[in-house]
């Protein structure tokens, strides 16, 4: 199972052991963990401080869209193992949101595949963040920089021609 959507936190140490398994062809693992940024103690000072975050998603499509991204990564790089976990529900600043871990024979492909999955997840997987601040709650706007990050991989395919 490559993809999990869950409310519970995840244990990066246990995931690392699962990623490596007993596979001695693994030369390296690249792991990204995304966290909720915010200022939990700055509530009084800053009306825009993020006090909490709520993550909504589209059950079913979330899993299948991330699995499609993972499948595409498996076609582009020789992944020996891959794992994606995305949390949903109520989170607070400092909490882990997302885990993307890949194990490969060589470090270059591990870094590339991990960043590819994160960039595509950011622009294709149906999650929506709502922040709670002292002045109320608000939906987070999508960022153009995330679209640009995902578009890089498209250009790579075109210019490389393979």
């Amino acid at each position, binding site marked *: 199972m490559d993809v999990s959507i869950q409310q519970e936190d995840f244990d990066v140490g246990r995931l690392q052991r699962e990623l490596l398994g007993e596979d001695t062809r693994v030369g390296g693992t690249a792991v990204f963990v*995304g966290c909720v940024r915010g200022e939990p103690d700055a509530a009084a000072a800053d009306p825009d401080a993020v006090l909490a975050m709520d*993550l*909504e*998603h*589209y059950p*079913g*499509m979330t899993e*299948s*869209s991330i699995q499609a991204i993972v499948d595409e990564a498996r076609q582009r790089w020789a992944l020996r193992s891959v794992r994606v976990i*995305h949390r949903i529900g109520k989170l607070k600043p400092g909490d882990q*949101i*997302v885990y993307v871990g890949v194990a490969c024979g060589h470090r270059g492909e591990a870094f590339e595949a991990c960043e590819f999955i*994160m960039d595509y*997840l*950011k*622009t*294709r*997987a*149906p*999650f*929506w*963040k*709502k922040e709670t601040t002292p002045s109320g709650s608000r*939906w*987070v*706007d*999508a960022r153009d920089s*995330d679209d640009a990050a995902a578009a890089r991989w498209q250009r790579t395919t075109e210019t490389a021609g393979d």
Partner: protein
Amino acid sequence: MIRVLFFARLREQLDVGQLELSPSEAGGTVAELKQRLVDRGEPWASALGADNLLCALNQQQARGDEAVAAGDEVAFYPPVTGG
């Protein structure tokens, strides 16, 4: 019936998370289904008029020209912000 889902800001603007339409109510394609909803007036017209709105047919991102039939699931949602 056709199941229609709304998420995040759009769900709040419409104050509805899902509804069911008969194929004749839905029109023939995803885009026509959306137009039928816009034709209901406010808040549908404004909320579904946002030009960055995305849609999916049976949990695959859709362009709009896909045919919609009984048993299908159509979803409308704002740009995604996970990760």
